[in-house]
């Protein structure tokens, strides 16, 4: 596992490694660390899922994570994040994404972590290919528009700020 704060990888994700890289980067005092792991579920919309296969436009995905971190620094000065996302086959129960947020106080650490996952889902060029009992389907979510102010506001709203 790379020690980079932002990565797209086919390795199993390690919250521990990601936390270390965020803590190393973080300059100010840290009193709160929050994390989010997205796990592959065995069921989706009534389909029995076998596994997911993630594809990414890697350089743009990594830049997207970095961009989200910049947005967070503006919204919550002193908060830092790291994001690792899997590509390739991810089995049921495994983590497809890990996010870690640090801040002096808990309110900002929670907000930053939640905002980060909302923004990843909005703008990261990553696609989920679902293999289920009986077939496979590309999941299509949001049209990626990094500069869309409405999407950013929606992410802030979900982050509760």
């Amino acid at each position, binding site marked *: 596992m790379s020690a980079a704060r932002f990565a797209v990888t086919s390795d199993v994700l390690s919250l521990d490694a990601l936390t270390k890289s965020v803590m190393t980067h973080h300059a100010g005092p840290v009193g709160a660390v929050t994390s989010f792991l997205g796990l592959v579920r065995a069921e989706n919309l009534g389909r029995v899922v076998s596994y997911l296969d993630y*594809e990414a436009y890697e350089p743009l*995905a990594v830049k997207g994570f970095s961009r989200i971190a910049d947005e967070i620094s503006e919204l919550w000065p002193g908060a830092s994040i790291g994001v690792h996302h899997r590509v390739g086959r991810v089995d049921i129960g495994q983590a*497809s994404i890990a996010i870690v947020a640090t801040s002096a106080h808990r309110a900002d650490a929670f907000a930053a972590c939640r905002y980060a996952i909302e923004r990843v889902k909005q703008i990261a060029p990553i696609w989920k290919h679902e293999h289920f009992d009986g077939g496979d389907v*590309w999941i299509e979510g949001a*049209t990626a528009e*990094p500069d869309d102010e409405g999407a950013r506001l929606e992410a802030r709203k979900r982050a509760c700020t």
Partner: protein
Amino acid sequence: MHVTVRLFARLKDIAGAPELERDVPADATLADVWALLAHDFPAMAPYRGSVSGARNAEYSRMDAVIADGDEIAFLPPVSGG
């Protein structure tokens, strides 16, 4: 001018390849490249309203003018996380 076009997810499946090469006229925009693809692969046409463009691994407006040798990418709606 010559550009490389990268395609992902369903668009890649429709094209049958993750990467295409195309010759385009000078002053061509991303939208022009998209029009070429939609012509070659009609199944891509419905993505016109939902596709995002990127130029040299940066998000780009569809009306941006491209340069010779650019890597253009078309991104269907994303579903990471």
